[in-house]
């Protein structure tokens, strides 16, 4: 049966439906509701474990450790908390812990505008931690998709043996839509890793070989290890090349938008073609290349100062136009005028 559900609730329910049984978190807008739901759920379901941690560092470490202990674990936060989680995220990649980190974005840097939506943590997803990592990240734009992509994130985590990022934004977290959660079916990838307590393995953040022997001054071993990690993530990413493409016959302009900005620019679908990446990272290079060929102009509309645009430019080896919706402002009229101005500038 359809009922009104918020983005945050859909994320939580999606996690429960794929078998999540551990949550650790620290209060922060706009994901506190996920923490609260987890607290209540754990009271009613003893098999589900919950930790309100003393900070996001602990929340992240607990999520990864619970995963290694055998749980399907997740955490939820926003930009400032995500920053505190970065060291743990790097560790999670090295010790190969399948788990899900939800980051619902608000305006930064620092405390910024805590209740206003933003999309400004994309670079943090890819490059927030020390060293090279290849995280998978998905970004829904509806409540229904929050539910489904949470499940996808858990599945991709099991397959890639790594923390997978589910992005959202303050708008989406608090958006209510009519959806039928109970009636939806989800694909579930079961646990892939033997839990702690079943061997003599060392799970270490230090560089190591396949036997778990620490190898902190062996470049050959390191290179092999990193290549394998990258290959595995690429293989899993290929399974989830999610995007939405709405071509508009007479348009020479392609708008690229995702999450809440894609909801706003949807109103322009009769004038411009729209491409919405759902898998945010790794960047959908092949798909972007194919689609962009038919257009003279490419405009990335996003809630930050050109983060995704810079990835598109790299992927296409060309400059693109940027519309930066900053400080929580996502008005269609304003976006439209920015697009018009931009196109005038290049002589449409």
């Amino acid at each position, binding site marked *: 049966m359809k009922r009104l559900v918020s983005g945050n609730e859909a994320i939580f329910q999606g996690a429960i439906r794929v078998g999540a049984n551990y949550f650790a978190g620290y209060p922060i807008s706009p994901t506190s509701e996920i923490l609260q739901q987890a607290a209540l759920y754990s009271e009613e379901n003893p098999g589900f*474990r919950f*930790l309100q941690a003393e900070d996001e560092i602990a929340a992240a470490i*607990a999520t990864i450790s619970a995963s290694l202990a055998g749980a399907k674990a997740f955490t939820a936060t926003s930009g400032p908390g995500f920053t505190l989680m970065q060291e*743990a995220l790097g560790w999670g990649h090295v010790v190969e812990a399948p788990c899900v980190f939800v980051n619902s974005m608000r305006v930064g840097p620092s405390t910024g505008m805590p209740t206003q939506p933003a999309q400004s943590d994309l670079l943090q997803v890819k490059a927030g931690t020390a060293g090279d990592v290849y995280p998978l990240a998905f970004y829904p734009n509806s409540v229904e998709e929050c539910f489904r992509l949470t499940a996808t994130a858990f599945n991709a985590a099991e397959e890639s043996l790594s923390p997978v990022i589910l992005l959202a934004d303050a708008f989406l977290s608090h958006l209510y839509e009519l959806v039928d959660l109970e009636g939806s079916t989800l694909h579930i990838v079961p646990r892939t890793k033997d839990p*702690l307590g079943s061997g003599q*393995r060392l*799970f270490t953040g230090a560089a190591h070989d396949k036997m778990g022997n620490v190898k902190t001054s062996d470049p050959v071993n390191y290179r092999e290890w990193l290549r394998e990690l990258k290959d595995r993530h690429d293989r899993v990413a290929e399974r989830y090349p999610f995007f939405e493409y709405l071509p508009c016959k007479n348009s020479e302009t392609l708008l690229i938008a995702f999450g809440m900005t894609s909801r706003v620019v949807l109103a322009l679908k009769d004038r411009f073609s729209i491409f919405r990446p759902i898998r945010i990272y790794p960047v959908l290079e092949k798909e972007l290349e194919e689609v962009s060929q038919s257009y003279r102009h490419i405009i990335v509309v996003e809630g930050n100062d050109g983060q995704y645009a810079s990835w598109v430019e790299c992927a296409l080896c060309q400059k693109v136009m940027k519309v930066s919706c900053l400080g929580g402002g996502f008005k269609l009229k304003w976006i439209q005028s920015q697009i018009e101005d931009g196109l005038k500038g290049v002589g449409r």
Partner: protein
Amino acid sequence: MDRSYKELLKLRRFPHTWCPGCGIGAVLKNVAMVMKELGWNYKNTVAVSGIGCSGRMSGYMNLDALHTPHGRPLTAAEAIKTVRSDLNVMVLSGDGDLASIGGNHLLHTSRRNPDITVFCNDNEIYGLTGGQAGPTTPQGTKTLTSPRGEHHSPLRLGRILTQQAPYFYARTTVYHLNHFKTCIREALLWKGFSFVDIISDCIELNGRRLGFKTAHQMFKWFDERFHIVEGERDQLQEDELGIAKAVVKEVPRPAEKEEVKPEIPMEGLKPFTLEELERFDGQEGRPIYMAYQGKVYDLSASPLFQGEKRMRCHLGGKDLTKDLDIAPHGEDLIFKFPLVGKME
């Protein structure tokens, strides 16, 4: 001598990375010996370490072991124990890792009291990074970052960890071997959070600067600084080696009281209109009256109306029924005040 404890060590990874004479080896060995006695092994035990020379310990244990980012082993151990209550979970790490960068987790994991045991190799220095002052470095000690002597007094782990029951805090040294083993055994068997503060030596990067030529000279120094106290204790002095522990006495839960609402007869009460009520607003020395569910109360004595004569949310001289129904406090708050009339 029984050497069977060696099956608990990853001997294939030896020689280990520690300096000759370092106290960490003694910690690893003695923990393994007691584990062997207790029948703890890879089938039922997980070891967790942070970063540091001490943090290398779990990697030499022949078990599933976790080597976390710097400062985070307590959180990891707690999460593992939460998910797998059937496993014995122990932490082996250093004072810098557990008490400085991991200090916040020390406060909160100990407060939540998971059933884990922590062995802190307390060498009073940052070993791995070359000999900087740590959280437990005694005041006046010269280190790389306190070239004229450490200015600040050290963290007193024994006090922090014995503030609220239940707790288990043991202090011992790598020199007082029998005592050391007793502490390990009792800690491993303790139900709840147990912490063993093991005074240990970093001969290379602390001892030599202090003028000691051998590890053994440092051990003798430990013997001068500390003495063993026997028997049950709930606190330890800073120069005492021993075990301080406390369990919480089960406090019987008070039987839930049935809520009795005072029954007050309405007849005979002075009737008020809303306009009349509004005059009793606390201004210019007038009393403060408020209505609730048809009754008028005198709230002049309420501390919330002193000073500015105004509560955070409610103003005097008003009907409060709606406000109170959504207020964070219960309505019983208002029944405490004198009843002076009823609403018309």
